[in-house]
C-alpha cells in the first residue's frame, strides 16, 4: 500500500519532466520542423487547396492548441497516422517494439552480466596482471567506435570475405533458429561496445566499496571471504549498479538500436525512428519522444522502489 501511494506520487512528480521533454521536442521538431504542406499537394496548387491541407495537418492552429493536442495524444496514446506510410502510429509501434526488444535484450543482458563478472574478477585480483589486462582491454574496447565494430563484425562474421556464418542483414524470423542467426552479429557488436564501459564502471564501484573501513573491520574480525564479498561489498555496491542498469533501459530501446537497426535493416523502433527523422514524419517522432520521456519517469520510479528493496534504510517518502 505504501509502495502504491509512493508510486502514484512519484508518477505525478514526473509530469514536469514529461512536459519539459515534450515541449522542447515539440518546439524543435514540429514548430521549426519540416513543413509537409507542399509534399501532400500536386503541382501548381490553388490557395484554397493549400489552406485545406494546412487545416488537415493542423498548421492553422495556434502554437498552444497544437502543443495541447500533442499532450492529449500522449495521454491517450493515440498519435494518429504516420505521414509517410499512412499506417496508424500505435500499430506501427506495436509491430516494431517487440522486434527491438528481441534484438537488444540479449546484448543488454550479456553486456551487463559479463561486465559485472569481469569487474568482479578485476577487483578481486586488484593491481595484479589479471586486473591490468582486463582494464587495458576495457580501454581498448572503449576506444573502438560502435560504427567500426558493427561494420567490422559484419565483415568478419557475416560476409563472404570473413567467416560467413550469419546473414549479412535483414530480419526474417520464423523460428527460434532464425532468431539466433539474425540476432547474433548485432548482439556481439552491442556486447563488445558496452563491455569496456560497463567493466570499468562496475570495477570502480566495487573497488571503492572494497576500500571502505567497514570492509577492513569485517576482514579483521575474520569474516570469510565469500560472505565478506556478498554481504559487505556486493550488497553495498548495488545502488550505483541498479541506477546504471535501469537508466540505460530507455535509451537502449530507442537510441541504442537506431544505428544497429538502420545498418542491418531490421524493422524495429530504431529503424522507424531513423526513417521518420529522414522523412520528417512528425506523428512517429512525437510518439517516440513522448514515450521515451514516460519510460524515463518509469525508470526513475523503478530505481527508487529497488533502492528500497536493497537498502532498508531508504524510506519511500
Amino acid at each position, binding site marked *: 500500500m505504501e509502495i502504491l501511494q509512493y508510486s502514484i506520487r512519484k508518477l505525478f512528480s514526473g509530469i514536469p519532466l514529461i512536459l519539459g521533454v515534450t515541449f522542447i521536442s515539440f518546439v524543435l521538431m514540429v514548430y521549426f520542423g519540416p513543413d509537409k504542406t507542399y509534399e501532400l499537394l500536386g503541382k501548381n496548387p490553388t490557395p484554397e487547396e493549400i489552406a485545406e491541407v494546412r487545416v488537415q495537418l493542423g498548421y492553422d492552429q495556434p502554437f498552444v492548441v497544437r502543443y495541447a493536442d500533442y499532450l492529449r495524444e500522449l495521454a491517450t496514446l493515440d498519435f494518429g497516422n504516420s505521414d509517410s506510410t499512412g499506417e496508424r502510429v500505435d500499430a506501427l509501434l506495436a509491430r516494431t517494439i517487440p522486434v527491438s526488444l528481441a534484438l537488444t535484450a540479449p546484448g543488454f543482458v550479456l553486456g551487463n552480466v559479463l561486465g559485472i563478472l569481469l569487474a568482479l574478477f578485476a577487483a578481486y585480483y586488484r593491481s595484479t596482471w589479471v586486473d591490468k589486462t582486463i582494464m587495458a582491454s576495457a580501454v581498448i574496447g572503449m576506444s573502438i567506435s560502435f560504427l567500426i565494430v558493427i561494420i567490422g563484425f559484419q565483415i568478419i562474421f557475416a560476409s563472404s570475405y570473413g567467416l560467413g556464418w550469419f546473414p549479412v542483414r535483414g530480419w526474417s524470423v520464423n523460428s527460434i533458429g532464425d532468431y539466433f542467426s539474425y540476432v547474433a552479429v548485432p548482439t556481439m557488436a552491442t556486447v563488445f561496445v558496452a563491455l569496456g564501459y560497463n567493466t570499468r564502471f562496475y570495477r570502480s564501484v566495487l573497488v571503492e566499496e572494497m*576500500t571502505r573501513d567497514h570492509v577492513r573491520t569485517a576482514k579483521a574480525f575474520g569474516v570469510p571471504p565469500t560472505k565478506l564479498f556478498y554481504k559487505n561489498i556486493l550488497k553495498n555496491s548495488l545502488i550505483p549498479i541498479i541506477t546504471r542498469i535501469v537508466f540505460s533501459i530507455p535509451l537502449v530501446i530507442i537510441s541504442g538500436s537506431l544505428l544497429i537497426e538502420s545498418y542491418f535493416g531490421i524493422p524495429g523502433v530504431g529503424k522507424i525512428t531513423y526513417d521518420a527523422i529522414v522523412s520528417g514524419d512528425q506523428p512517429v517522432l512525437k510518439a517516440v519522444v513522448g514515450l521515451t520521456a514516460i519510460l524515463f519517469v518509469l525508470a526513475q520510479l523503478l530505481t527508487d522502489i529497488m533502492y528500497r528493496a536493497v537498502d532498508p534504510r531508504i524510506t519511500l517518502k
Partner: protein
Amino acid sequence: MNAVATAVVRRESLWSKAFYKFSRDRTGMISLVFVLFYMLIALGVTLGWLASDWSDVQGGKWEGMSMTYWFGTNMIGQDIFSRAIYSTKTAFEVGLVVALIATAVGAVIGAISGFFSGSWIDEVLLWLMGVLDSIPFYLFVAAIVFAMQESPYAMHVAMISTFWTGSSRLVRGEVIKLRGLEYVEAAHAIGVPELTIIFRHILPNTTHILLVQATITFVAAIKSEVILSFLGLGVKDGMSWGLMIAESSQEVMAGFFNNFLAASVLMFGLVMAFNMFSDALQDALDPRKVS
C-alpha cells in the same frame, strides 16, 4: 643558508603534485605524445600544409597501396590517406569546440545549481538537466539540424546542449561539498557578494574536475561526430572519418577495405590515446581516486 632553505621548502600545490605525478606516469606520457602528434597533424591541415589535395580526383578507382597513394584510392580515385589525414582536423575541431564550451557551460550552471542547492533555482536547473538527458540524442540532433537550417554548426550546438549536463552534475556535487567549508563561510561573513564567492572562491577549486571532464567530453564528441556524419546528420562540407566509413559501407561489400581501415585505424589511435591521457590526468589530479 637562507638560499638553501628557500630552495628546499618548495610550495606544494595540487598542480605541482599532479604535474610531478603525471610526468612519472609512463602510459600517460606516451599517450600525451600521441595526442600532441595528432594535434600537430590537425594544425598542419588547418594551416594548409597537409592533405590539401583531399578532394582532388587523382588516381584510378580503388587503387591499392602504393608510394603515391599510401592507403590507395577510393571509388572515384581520391587519395584515401589525404582524406583520412584531413579528417583529423575535423575531429579535433569538433572535439575542441564541443569540449570547451560544454565544460564551461556545465561549470557555470553546475556551480550556480550547487551553490543554491535546495532552492528553486537548483530545482529548475536540475529539471533542465533531466529533460535534456531524456531526449533521445539522435532525434535531438536531427531536430536541431533542421531547426538551424542545415547550418554546419548544428551538430556542435546539439552536442554542446546535451553534453554539458554531465559536467554540470559533477561540479554541482563538488560545489555542495565546498560550500560548507570554513573559507566560504568566512567570505560570507566579511560580506563578499554571492556571485563573487561562486566564481572567484568556489569554482576555481573545481578546475581539476573540469579538466578531466573536458577530456572525456572531447572523446565523446569525436565519437558522436563520426556516427552523426555517417548518418548524414553531421559534417556536410569537408571530410570526416564518419563520411569515409559511410562511403566504405558500399565498398566493403565489394571487397575493398582500404577506406574503412584507414578511417578506423586513425580514429582508434586518437580516441585510444585520448582515453589513456584522460585516465592518467585523472590519476594525477584526483587524490581521492582509488585505483
